[in-house]
């Protein structure tokens, strides 16, 4: 193996694969990355046996070949090099990867290629294709609503539901639910439940202009672009019937300026952020014909009262208490100037949706004060 490539291209690729490399493992070779020199390109591949990522960058290949080196050291070393041409070659006699850059030379020990577990990549015929920037804008609206893996592993993913001409993308941590409705031009009928951490990594490495094709089969899915190929095991838990929790009617529908409401809630979140209040990050909303009245009280800090005037209302009054963070987070990712808020009393869910886009819903369950 002998290749030449640019540090500026090699370094991001290696940092990206390092995110997949398991930090603690009983199989030492999993700490490695499989480097291979192919015609005109250099590929680096890692797996944690749950998912596998392969990234390819353009390179001047003088001799093809493969080797496995410890990913973290290779990535850290390359990251610290200046932005110039880097040469990677394999010293067969010493069984070491030789990295040379300018007048310096580094040698890294390797593992035999045969020891590296193969992680099967699915056939690349994509079932669904999407432009990078669009996919990233979807993820932005969904990922924050996913449950952390250690708390509710069964909900730590994003659910893609293809049905008729719509694709519903859903994320929930059971306290709130984000739903994005997009067009399903291929008229697929299927469902996949993708681990959120995989989507998080894709969100980081996906180029805006690349077209990504997604294919899935037998509990595995592959996300492929010219730059990377990301294969992962899908979540096996059954996603709940999300459609039954979305209220069809609402007690009160109001329209407000998104930024105004967001700013008020940002201030409210300050009043509920003291450490002893971890559990009581509650903001009280009272809505009448004119305004939303926001109150937040902390015995240690003080209290807050805000009024946000309504742009439009269906008429009527409503009162409910919410976890401030759950009210605030969707406002941060929405884009339209005015948003619609549907309220269903102190026990029913509140639903945000964006005025112009119309396809993004965010449902939040109110909290019940402990009397």
């Amino acid at each position, binding site marked *: 193996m002998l290749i030449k490539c640019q540090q500026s291209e090699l370094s991001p690729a290696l940092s990206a694969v390092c995110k997949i490399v398991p930090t603690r493992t009983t199989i030492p070779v999993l700490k490695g990355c499989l480097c291979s020199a192919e015609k005109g390109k250099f590929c680096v591949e890692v797996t944690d046996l749950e998912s596998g990522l392969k990234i390819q960058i353009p390179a001047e290949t003088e001799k093809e070949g493969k080797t496995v080196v410890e990913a973290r050291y290779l990535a850290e070393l390359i990251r610290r090099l200046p932005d110039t041409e880097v040469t990677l070659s394999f010293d067969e006699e010493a069984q070491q990867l030789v990295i040379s850059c300018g007048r310096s030379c580094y040698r890294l020990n390797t593992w035999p290629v045969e020891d590296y577990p193969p992680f099967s990549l699915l056939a690349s015929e994509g079932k669904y294709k999407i432009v990078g920037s669009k996919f990233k804008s979807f993820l932005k609206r969904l990922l924050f609503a996913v449950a*952390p893996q*250690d*708390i509710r592993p069964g*909900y730590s993913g994003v659910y893609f539901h293809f049905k008729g001409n719509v694709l519903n993308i859903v994320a*929930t941590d*059971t*306290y*709130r*639910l984000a739903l994005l409705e997009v067009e399903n031009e291929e008229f697929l009928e299927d469902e996949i439940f993708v681990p959120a951490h995989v989507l998080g990594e894709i969100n980081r490495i996906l180029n805006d202009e690349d077209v990504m094709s997604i294919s899935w089969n037998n509990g595995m899915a592959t996300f492929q672009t010219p730059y990377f190929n990301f294969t992962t095991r899908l979540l096996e838990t059954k996603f*709940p019937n999300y459609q039954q*929790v979305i209220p069809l009617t609402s007690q009160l529908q109001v329209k407000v300026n998104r930024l105004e409401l967001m700013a008020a809630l940002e201030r409210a979140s300050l009043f509920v952020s003291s450490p*002893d*209040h*971890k*559990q*009581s990050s*509650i903001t009280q909303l009272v809505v009448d014909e004119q305004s939303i009245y926001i109150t937040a009280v902390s015995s240690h800090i003080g209290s807050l009262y805000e009024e946000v005037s309504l742009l439009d209302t269906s008429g009527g009054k409503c009162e409910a*208490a919410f*976890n401030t963070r759950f009210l605030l987070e969707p406002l941060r990712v929405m884009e339209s100037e005015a948003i619609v808020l549907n309220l269903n009393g102190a*026990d029913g*869910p509140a639903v945000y949706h964006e005025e112009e886009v119309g396809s993004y819903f965010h*449902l939040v*369950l*109110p*909290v*019940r*004060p*402990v009397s």
Partner: protein
Amino acid sequence: MERVILLADMNSFFASVHQAIDPSLRGKPVVVSGDPSTRHGVVLSASYEAKAKGVKTGMTVREARATCPEAIFVKSQYHLYLEFSSRILRIMHNFTPFVEPFSIDEAFLDVTGCQKLFGPPITIARKLKERIRQETGISCSVGIGPNKLLAKMAAGLEKPDGLTVLRHEDVPHRLWPLPVRELFGVGPRYEYHLNRLNIRTIGDLANFPVELLKRKFGVKGEVLWLCANGIDASPVDPNTLKQTKSIGQQITLPRDYRNGELKTVILELADLVSYRARLKKCIGKTVVLFLKDPHFYCLCRRQTLPEYTNLAADISRTALELLKRNWPANWSVRMVGLALANLVPQYADQPALFDEKEKIKSIEKACDLVRNKYGKETIFRAASLKEGCWKYYT
């Protein structure tokens, strides 16, 4: 101005309560114990008449009977002691608002600011003792000192019915000759480690280089050294009991149980603990399991949960995991304890869209309503109908 702190310590509290409500027991050796048939047969408290005959707290009932055959044995009645304790605290509150309950039969009082009302400290202490005796029939020892530590040490110097003043200048001649074990905060472990440093008396500790103690015992080493010198700046905090840190329940089993049988006991304890947490409107994040085997080997393991809870389902599941991980299945158990720690107040309950927990929450809530109305033991799991469950040991 120098602080004036009082510590009032009820003498033989449980036994005194029984003597107070039953005049026929007065002046007689009274021993309060658990029920020997369920292996709770340990002396919890002995009246001074019984103590004079050699009965000590912690003895088994059999030993106590052998030491003092004429003793009158009384079964413990916890609600009585709580009632007397709160009556006594109410009397203390007539003297100062700064009353810190330290245990069921002890409390600190900060009377620095009340001397214009009630006179000098000794007069206050006499008045307090007199009122407690008149209104509840219980005698107490009072220690007076410039801080909590010296007040506590003073109260221990003269028992029963004592009244002792310990000033800073008294420390060398009154405290220093005492064995180091007598110092507040020194238990058998510290006694052992201090003895190894040839520290035998409180005076030895007070004159030991503090740097060496710090290096050996960390912060606690310095605290002990300060205590030995009579220095303590901690305030009398009337709210200590208001912030609950953990809620626990433990039981000595009527016979040795094996792992399989323990499951029901843990479920029962989890029900009690979670019920108490909900009554206090608390949620906790850490589950603590405590086990003791027939040879008094103890094991305490804790597990912190990802989310706060006060549901019996969460507590028992975590406790059973701890049991499975840390206790061999064929190993007998004499005592089980279960606690929910890392508590914070629960202000609100966040319902979930899809969780089965909603169901469990409403079941446990419904059980609470039954318990509140008809008593703690009126509702229980079907598993508790089996032999060896709470019906058989309470």
